């Protein structure tokens, strides 16, 4: 009997699944359906080196087409899956037809949260999640252009840095009282705010967007306090939501993502899911997580693929994240929720320091700014649930792993 595994989604998780399934010995029919016309590609550079023009499009590809040919993976690209029927184990693909599966892997990703205020659909309002959007944004960037960026998170700030490097006049509007407030310590927000200021980026906090102004094309952003920020174009980076429409319509359990167990199984035994679209249990953290991260997509897709083939691999990783803004690199490992003590190692004025988050003596998370040594040490320490002496960890001359 011939078998078919179908992967829906051509992002990091989908591309990784092709690799893992073949590497693990799956030899039968394998189909990957992606809604974008391009070969599966890396998204992180879209706000950085691709946007700046340093990386050509083909350097974003995870693999060249020959890889998929050699691994006998059928690519159905630029096509949308319109429905999924778990009862008949089939999906309907627009302009393609019905496809039966024996096992299905959903790697649907996340989509940008949209502004809903007046003027939100004006021309010149950009989001940044895929290549098409990145190309549209690139076409607007020119020296002297006035850019207003809504949202001071990773996407907003990386885009701000790239636009500033290319000579734009950049303003960032952040709703909270500091940038990246949900992911880093205040001292890290302060450091990056200063880096942006040094490069001419104006960051306004506690700025609530009330409307986008303009006739056909956006001309400015109006804040709730009445201030108007003139703009030649606007970039919105206000978070993302798991893509669950297909799964929800098929009756799969969804709750801030497609609900999966630690083996990446959805509520249907023939359907697994991986990546940004999942809400998954974390044995390590004792709660459910929905992560938007390359590492999670990669590792969860690996685990899901092994389990699709009969394995019992538990997906339980220490999350990690990175961001590049100007010439500074932010590396984060672990999740700091539940921490009761924060220790700064080193002096931010030196432009290389790290922030440790402890629960008692256990290191829960670390944010490293231009400090890969602490970051790499922390990856091991956190994975091992090592305990340290927080007072010794404060001394940057003591290697982190020796701060016991």
């Amino acid at each position, binding site marked *: 009997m011939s078998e078919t595994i179908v992967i829906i989604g051509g992002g990091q998780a989908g591309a990784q699944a092709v690799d893992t399934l073949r590497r693990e010995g799956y030899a039968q029919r394998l189909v990957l359906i992606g809604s974008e016309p391009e070969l599966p590609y*890396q998204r*992180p*550079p879209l706000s950085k080196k691709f946007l700046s023009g340093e990386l050509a499009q083909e*350097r974003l590809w*995870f*693999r*060249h087409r020959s*890889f998929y040919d*050699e691994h006998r993976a059928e690519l159905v690209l630029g096509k949308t899956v319109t429905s999924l029927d778990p009862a008949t184990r089939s999906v309907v693909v627009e302009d393609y037809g019905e496809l039966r599966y024996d096992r299905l892997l959903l790697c649907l990703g996340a989509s940008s949260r949209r502004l809903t205020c007046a003027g939100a659909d004006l021309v010149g309002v950009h989001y940044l999640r895929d290549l098409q959007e990145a190309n549209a944004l690139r076409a607007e960037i020119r020296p002297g252009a006035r850019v207003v960026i809504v949202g001071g998170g990773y996407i907003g700030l990386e885009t701000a840095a790239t636009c500033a490097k290319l000579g734009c006049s950049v303003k960032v509007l952040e709703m909270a009282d500091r940038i990246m407030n949900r992911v880093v310590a205040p001292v890290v927000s302060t450091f990056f705010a200063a880096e942006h200021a040094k490069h001419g980026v104006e960051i306004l906090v506690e700025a609530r967007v009330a409307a986008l102004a303009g006739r056909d094309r956006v001309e400015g952003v109006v804040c709730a306090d009445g201030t108007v920020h003139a703009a030649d174009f606007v970039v919105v980076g206000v978070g993302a939501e798991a893509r669950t429409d297909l799964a929800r319509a098929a009756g799969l359990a969804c709750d801030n993502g497609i609900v999966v167990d630690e083996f990446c199984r959805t509520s249907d035994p023939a359907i697994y899911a991986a990546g940004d679209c999942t809400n998954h249990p974390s044995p390590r953290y004792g709660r459910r997580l929905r992560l938007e991260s*390359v*590492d999670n997509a*990669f590792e969860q897709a690996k685990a899901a693929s092994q389990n699709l083939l009969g394995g019992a691999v538990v997906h339980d990783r220490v999350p*990690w994240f*990175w961001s*590049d803004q100007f010439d500074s*690199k932010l*590396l984060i490992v672990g999740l700091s929720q539940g921490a009761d003590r924060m220790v700064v190692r080193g002096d931010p004025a030196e432009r*290389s320091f790290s922030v440790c988050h402890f629960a008692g003596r256990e290191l829960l998370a670390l944010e490293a700014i*231009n*400090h*890969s*040594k*602490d*970051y*790499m*040490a922390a*990856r*091991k320490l956190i994975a091992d649930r090592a305990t340290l002496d927080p007072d010794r960890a404060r001394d940057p001359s003591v290697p982190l792993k020796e701060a016991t």
Partner: protein
Amino acid sequence: MTPRVRFVQADGREREVETPVGISLMEIAKQRGIVGIVAQCGGACACATCHVYVDRAWTQQLPPPEDMEVGMLESAWEPRDNSRLSCQITMTAALDGLRVTVPARQV
């Protein structure tokens, strides 16, 4: 003439590949499916999963690693004094004949 690089893969097999110049050794390895190069972060110097050992004859001919790379390598899997992150090595014509060994594991 197109430069060539030899990879001793994580599975022990040795492969010689032709390489374009101007892109990183990691990108070449990914394109060619060199076994053992993971490169999760895609070249951002953020994951240390494209670690290689550079043949002794070549270590001096590469530009020295920057601080970020040195810090990443310190806690990589079994680092040696000839360890490098392949995402930080840009291929040039002068590197024709370069030989690197992929460690058995990345992390």
